[in-house]
């Protein structure tokens, strides 16, 4: 579906901006509720993420001693801004991407990485031990899952023959679901999404029982709220990308909801089923199994295209 709206409106209100933030809160609620139900608990009520955000915005923000004040205030804003920018290029809520040009797959993924980078820098900025260890782990994890995740999103790009998200989306919509045609790539993409979003078992960067809250330990009040909103937006955009490429495209809002929630259900199940991996185990897993599987999938795709053109 196509929405001919002025781009400033898209960026600020709908379907990006405020609407995207609101849907981020809804998806955070869905994720927490599903995880709770898997653990045989009740889980939060619907209004809980909004209540959390409002409470955080109302709290006093404590600036720790020894930080660079400008960076301390700017990094959460940069993080949220980058996440919202990435929303311009993906088919949010089943509508065509608001802005589209050749190579915007790279731009969208880069914007999401800026979010993680901002969090890592925020941790390195403060002098607290826990933040420093958390920042190290965040950046280490960024370097480890980025390559396989990108390769797994490259699979559909090669199949569609383009780097433009809207065109890959059209290709996915018109052909057999890429989940079936490229199963290995789908698995790598899904697990890569968990690494990107720092969901358990890949939540070593913010391991609560080891380093309190990792890179975000010293943040409170507004800064913390903005970081959390950035992560929620990243959740929505990540789900949109993976389901748009692998689950046959998102033609309208109803399909968007069904497909992304189905993917979220599987992610919630995987979140609850495993213990947390140590950071060195995460890196080992990604650089061995993850990269290997992604490369295998790419070779399969390239062979398939060339052999197909022979026949």
């Amino acid at each position, binding site marked *: 579906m196509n929405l001919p709206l002025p781009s400033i409106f898209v960026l600020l209100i709908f379907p990006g901006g405020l609407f995207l933030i609101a849907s981020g809160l809804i998806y955070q609620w869905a994720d927490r509720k599903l995880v709770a139900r*898997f653990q*045989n*608990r*009740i889980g939060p009520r619907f209004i809980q993420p909004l209540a959390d955000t409002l409470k955080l915005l109302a709290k006093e923000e404590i600036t720790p001693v020894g930080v660079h004040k400008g960076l301390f205030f700017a990094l959460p804003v940069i993080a949220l801004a980058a996440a919202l920018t990435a929303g311009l290029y993906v088919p949010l809520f089943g509508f065509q991407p608001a802005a589209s040009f050749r190579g915007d797959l790279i731009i969208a993924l880069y914007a999401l990485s800026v979010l993680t980078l901002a969090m890592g820098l925020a941790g390195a900025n403060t002098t607290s031990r826990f933040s420093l260890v958390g920042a190290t782990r965040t950046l280490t994890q960024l370097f480890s899952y980025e390559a396989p995740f990108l390769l797994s999103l490259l699979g559909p790009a090669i199949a569609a023959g383009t780097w433009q998200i809207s065109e890959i989306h059209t290709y996915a919509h018109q052909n057999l679901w890429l989940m079936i045609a490229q199963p290995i790539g789908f698995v790598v993409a899904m697990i890569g999404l968990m690494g990107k979003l720092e969901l358990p078992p890949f939540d070593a960067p913010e391991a609560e029982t080891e380093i309190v809250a990792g890179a975000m330990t010293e943040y409170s009040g507004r800064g913390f709220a903005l970081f959390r909103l950035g992560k929620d937006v990243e959740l929505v955009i990540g789900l949109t990308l993976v389901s748009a490429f692998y689950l046959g495209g998102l033609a309208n809002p109803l399909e968007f909801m069904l497909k992304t929630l189905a993917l979220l259900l599987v992610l919630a*199940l995987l979140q609850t089923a*495993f213990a947390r991996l140590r950071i060195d185990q995460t890196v080992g897993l990604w650089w061995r199994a993850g990269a290997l599987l992604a490369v295998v999938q790419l070779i399969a795709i390239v062979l398939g295209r060339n052999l197909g053109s022979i026949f």
Partner: protein
Amino acid sequence: MSVGPMISDLLRSLFKQPATELYPFVKTPAPIRLRGKLMWDPTNCTGCQLCVKDCPANAIELIVIDKANKRFIMNYHADHCIYCAQCVVSCRFNCLRLSNEDWELAAAQKQPFVMYYGKEEDIALFMEQAAKAGAEQA
């Protein structure tokens, strides 16, 4: 070596009721032996004060109105009490028991925690005397 042996349990939990009890909207009845609030029956009390001596938390105070006629009042501090039931065992005449119905004892002030047990007329007499003593002091 398997990956995710808990998955079958997790999937089943999705379709079961959560294990959380929605207290206070749902209240399951307490077991019979629950050690709740202390209850005193002054009928058989001889004033031996063994319960007072044995209490680890100094929660019981026995006020003597008339020792010869066995008229006593018990001042019970529910906030000091640790609900151990030592007094129940110490009393040789079975005057004390811990209730299993009265256990929701939270209050916002100290006043509800100070309780007086005894016969109606004894308590009335005691209150009169305390009021008179307070008026004399003031």
